[in-house]
């Protein structure tokens, strides 16, 4: 039974470089992790044994995705390269590498049926690829500033993008045409003293009933360059596109949400990092404030949910990959 108040770290595996992002194999065998060394690693969920995944990228890897069958991993780098990997290979190496974007690939998502992958990043373009052969299916310009995150609708026909300016758009995957816009502008700020755009939509998730879209990041950015800002989630009604409510977190003056996930019981989870520390934050749909927060041992940068729905994997600046059990 899910009970975040009983959270505890049940596994802690160390890597030698700060970690960035992670995704869990839907077949519950592996964790795929990107670090600041510019390569992927594969960790065994059984014993935490690490298998290096060298090659593929010239520099840091920002984004990772795994197909629903667990057979294929895709990685997107700051070099603009999109790489395919056989997830269970004894000595993993890229099976395909494409110059997919100009500059960073910040987000990769795979369609629920596993046939398509969507990528986006600093070049403001969304590209849709066939997972099977790497062919480009469609591309379109989707933002005026960096695209930070993507989300496939569970039914696979729509794709959501979130950008630095706090704009969430819903796109028809079959045509690349815009279907809807959600105003998450509160997640963006332009600081008049520091002359920087900041924040943006850093994580999105859809509720299990598919009625609510959440967009998360930060607000109250009084000092963007100094990490003075608080986490914020905006909840939208998907049908009307209207803002329903906000989720806040008191007492975290230096934090940003990096990813949002819904648990099967409708609880929203956010992973938070910043000078205030690393947290897993938990909200109920009917409450503004988090009902529980789990302090992680180090600043956190990404989170993914195990297929069992009861464990969360998090990546940390201290090079640790931690697994937190959230069930009784």
């Amino acid at each position, binding site marked *: 039974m899910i009970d975040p108040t009983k959270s505890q770290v049940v596994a802690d595996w160390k890597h030698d470089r700060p970690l960035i992002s992670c995704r869990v194999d839907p077949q519950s065998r592996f964790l795929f992790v990107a670090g*600041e060394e510019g390569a992927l690693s594969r960790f065994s969920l059984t014993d935490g044994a690490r298998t290096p995944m060298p090659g593929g990228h010239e*520099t840091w890897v920002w984004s990772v995705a795994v197909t629903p069958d667990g057979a294929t991993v895709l990685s997107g780098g700051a070099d603009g390269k999109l790489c395919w990997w056989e997830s269970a290979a004894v000595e993993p190496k890229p099976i395909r590498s494409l110059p997919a974007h100009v500059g960073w690939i910040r987000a990769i998502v795979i369609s629920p049926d596993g046939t398509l992958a969507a990528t986006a990043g*600093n070049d403001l373009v969304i590209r849709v690829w066939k997972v099977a052969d790497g062919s480009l299916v469609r591309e379109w310009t989707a933002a005026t500033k960096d695209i930070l995150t993507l989300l496939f609708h569970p039914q696979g026909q729509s794709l959501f993008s979130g950008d630095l300016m706090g704009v969430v758009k819903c796109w028809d995957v079959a045509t690349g045409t815009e279907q809807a816009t959600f105003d998450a502008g509160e997640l963006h700020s332009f600081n008049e003293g520091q002359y*920087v755009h900041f924040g943006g939509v850093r994580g999105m998730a859809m509720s299990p009933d598919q009625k609510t879209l959440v967009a998360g990041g930060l607000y109250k950015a009084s000092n963007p360059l100094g990490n003075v800002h608080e986490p914020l989630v905006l909840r939208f009604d998907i049908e009307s596109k209207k803002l329903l409510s906000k989720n806040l977190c008191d007492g975290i003056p230096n934090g940003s949400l990096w990813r949002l996930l819904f648990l099967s019981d409708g609880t929203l989870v956010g992973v938070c990092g910043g000078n205030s520390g690393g947290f897993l934050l938990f909200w109920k749909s009917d409450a503004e404030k988090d009902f529980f927060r789990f302090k992680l041992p180090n*600043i956190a940068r990404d989170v993914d949910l195990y297929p069992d729905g009861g464990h969360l994997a998090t990546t940390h600046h201290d090079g640790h990959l931690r697994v937190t059990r959230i069930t009784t």
Partner: protein
Amino acid sequence: MKCDYACHQPDHLLARRRFLGTLSAGFVAGGLGLLTAPAAAAQLAKDQKRVILFNMHGGLSQLESWDPKPGTDTGGPFRAIPTSVPGIHISELLPQTAQQMHHLCIARGVNTAEDDHGKGAYMMVTGRREMPGADYPKVGAVFAKALSAEAASLPGHILIAPWGGGSRGNDAAYLGPNFSSISLGNGKPPANTARPDSIAAASDDARNDFRRKVNERFLSRRRTAITDAYTHSYEQAHAMMRERDSFDVTKESPSDQSRYGSHDFGRHCLLARRLLERGVSFIQVVHSNYDTHNENFNFHFEQLGEFDRPFAAFVADLADRGMLDSTLIVVLSEFGRTPYVNHLYGRDHWSKAWSVLLGGARIPRGTAYGKTNERGMEVVDGQVDHASLFHTYLQAVGIDSLGHFVVDGREIPVADPAAKPVEGLLT
């Protein structure tokens, strides 16, 4: 040091006569024998030496700009790209500037040993460490003093920053307020430089003639730096009213405005070019902000994405217009940023090993001087500091940095006498 030359020292009396004699033409400025050789004075005037300084406010990361370390644990996510000079690579965030590298020179061995913003900034623009009881003129005041033509109708020391404006800086120390900066906040012309429509030109001239006569009578009995500055301000304002179009970048061609970009920094760079072409001796353009303790890479992507294109266009234009030999380009900060990446994807202050970009005048073209180690942690060759760089800037436009100003009869070294120019940065 207070600038109060009611002392009637002979050099000031001479300056006063020059001043009064040139009031109708503009305002007084001019060097005090600082040229490297007397014969060079005529040449300098002919060449109209100028200086442009880009101040990357907050501390530009050398690793995301002039000294990338790709593939190392300090390198960050951005790659290095080749430039127009074989063997010299800079960050991929500066692709347009990379194509102008044959005009430029990177000093990669800067070690200023000062990680405080205010102190570092002071050092980089005065060439000296801050000391209690001493104040030194900022680089712009020094160049305005040494390079500005006496008959110039525009100020010799201009600051273009995203903020402020309309005021005169307090940055000339003992050189006197005449050489303080005129601030063009966000590139706007100085305030109140348009003659009101209700005042006819003839009436305005008559008013000013009367004011000059009254001033002259007053100054014949009592003259101080303050009264000079007061008078000078009027004359400068009057001159600037006549030259108001100099501050209007919309007078530049649409294609140039497009090349420089529609954002503020692009407009500021184009304004700087326009003012240099009109004889302004020193311009500082501030680009802000690079103090990226948090999310260094996102912010450098944003800021350098804005900087690259107009800066590269500016360098190319100076070269195309034959102004590069007479114009020194400096791109500096108060310090660099830490090679290690912190837990916020940020970089903190780092003054032990960073870079300054130079170009034009006597600076060697298409070179990288100095070197940091593999991870960018320390200088391993060609170390320079704020003081030696300050000497170098001066020498690059023909000013004897080993000379001195005479203030109240006292000789004050133009630059830190304990330092000297970096010969490797001069041709």
